[in-house]
């Protein structure tokens, strides 16, 4: 299992469109991808839009990404990347 931390940098946070992008990306990997708020106020399955939205991750929220599976390395890199690029909004 691989883990890393990311910070939400885009203005609107993990809102609907960003969450949709994230879920699409997560779905393209075989690994299980979990997101956890660093303040422990929520865990989400990155392949479930409803659980991603319940994270209520606004700008500045720190998330812990945990990936486990056959393609975990590339999955983690891609997920980190999309967060860092602010879902193309920054």
């Amino acid at each position, binding site marked *: 299992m691989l883990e890393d931390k990311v910070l939400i940098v885009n203005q609107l946070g993990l*809102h609907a*469109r960003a969450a949709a992008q994230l879920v*699409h990306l997560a779905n393209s990997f075989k690994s299980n991808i979990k997101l956890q708020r660093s303040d422990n106020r929520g865990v989400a*399955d990155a392949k479930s839009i*409803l659980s991603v939205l*319940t994270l*209520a991750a*606004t700008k500045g929220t720190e998330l812990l990404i945990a990936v486990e599976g056959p393609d975990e390395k590339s999955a983690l890199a891609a997920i980190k990347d999309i967060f860092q690029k602010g879902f193309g909004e920054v």
Partner: protein
Amino acid sequence: MAITRKNNKEKNPPTAETILKGRSVSKGIAIGEAVCLYGVKRQFYRIKLKNNEVEREIKRFRAALRLARLRLKKISAPAQSNSSSILDVQFLMLEDPSLINKIETLIRSQKVNAEWAVKEVSDKYLEAYKAIQDDYLKERYIDLEDVTERLMGALEGGVHSSLPLSDKTIVIAKEIKPSTMVEILNGDVKGLVTESGGWTSHSFILAREHGLPSATGMKNVLRQIKTGDTLVVDGNNGIVHVNPPEKKMKEFSALQAAISKPGQRSKLPQKIKTLDGREMIIRVNSDTAINYLEAKKLGAKGIGLFRSEFLANRERGFPTEKTQLREYTHIANEVGKDGVCIRTFDIGVSQAFDEFEEKEKNPALGLRAIRLVLANENIFRTQIRALLRASYKKDVNIVLPMISDVAEILRAKKIIVEERKALRAKKINIGKPKLGAMIEVPSAVLMAAEIAVEVDFLSLGTNDLVQYLLAVDRDNENVADWFRTLHPAVLRSVKYVLEAGRKYKKPVMVCGEMSGSPVYCVILIGLGATELSMSVKAIPRVTEVLTQVSAKDAGAITKKLLGCRSASEAEAMVRAEFHCKWPHLFDLEALPKPRSI
């Protein structure tokens, strides 16, 4: 309102009795079994599945998911803008593994129907969303609500499933929409209990007219009462007894028997006549043979309104010619020479086609009824062929809904002629159905004479006429005070249509709630009506009233009503005159009460 719980001291009580106190809105005592309706937009219910039904329910849910995705794809395909990203979110929700898993788990563990499971699970999510601080993120609950709505729609196959009502049913709901109420009245339910809805709400007006004991003002009623509970609704005091002890049940049964009207039903007159001898023809609004047979026992002559769209609802799409022929023939056989008037499909475009997910802004003013089938002629032609064939040696008549212009009738007639020729050419047996037009749009009222010339009979649909004439949506509680059947404009319209019919010697049948109401039916007599069509439930009381008033007296009161300047004036006059002239027939309680407007 107060709730008192007390332990039941009877010998083998299944559950403790609960007593709920609210307000009385319609008198009488009802004893029966609760059926809970949920949802405001869609009224649905919880079903406990048998073990062998669970997997079938899972399959049904999965099929609904596929259908919902398919429909969503259809509307999102052309758009590539902002809107498509919103739909994308919804699409992902429909594929969401944890959502699907939770729903299926609930169906399996609780053995409940898919509708119920969808609602439970989505409610949990909605609660979580509503707790979110950030306003923008919080708003996402709307998407989930939308998705839930889509799933519910898909589970229904796009059209409303009918309510599971029996002759023991007492309907429990937060509130009852008048359209649901009409469906309830077509069945044979015993009573109503709701959380909200005022004395003047349209649903309760109907409940009073139909003598359906009802109570309201029961807070959290859906949590207090479960489907299957035994209930006594004491409509006189606005009290509901949930699972009362047997002793109490017996007391109420005795009380119920004592207040129910003495049986005057032993001998029905062959002809229903007013005191001064005007013969009245009573028909029934019915979509089923069972309903008709019951009405026949009560003195009804034939079916005045057969709503063919119920077939479309049942078949989850437009029925084939063969299915229609079978259904129409069946009902025509039962009805015999008294005849059945079959109204062609009266549905809106969003009900009819899946791809019209995007709702019309004003469905009541939209592509519906005759407009819909003329715009999709194949549907109409199929139905006409089935009707022509069903009328072979049988008394089957056709009624066209929502006519607003003679041109619609001319076009329909042309199609009928063409289909008749085509069937003849194929040597298929056909009959000669009479053609009627529904008068329910104000323009049709004003053109009643021209329309009468083109058809064999007229059907006055008073429910829609009141809505269209007064521009009032009767499902909208906010404007309930503007829905005034006694508005002089309504009365003058009815009179105008009856006169047009008389002038051109075309029968006019009044259907809709007005003819089924003991109060309004007297006014209809006064206006000159001779044919009324109503729900089965309404027949005994209306017959009782009709045979005890004279057309002359009714005419005298109606003449004064026609001269009133406002609905309030007319209502006050009805209250005073009816109570004074026929105190034995009308309790003050059942007469119109003064309203603020």
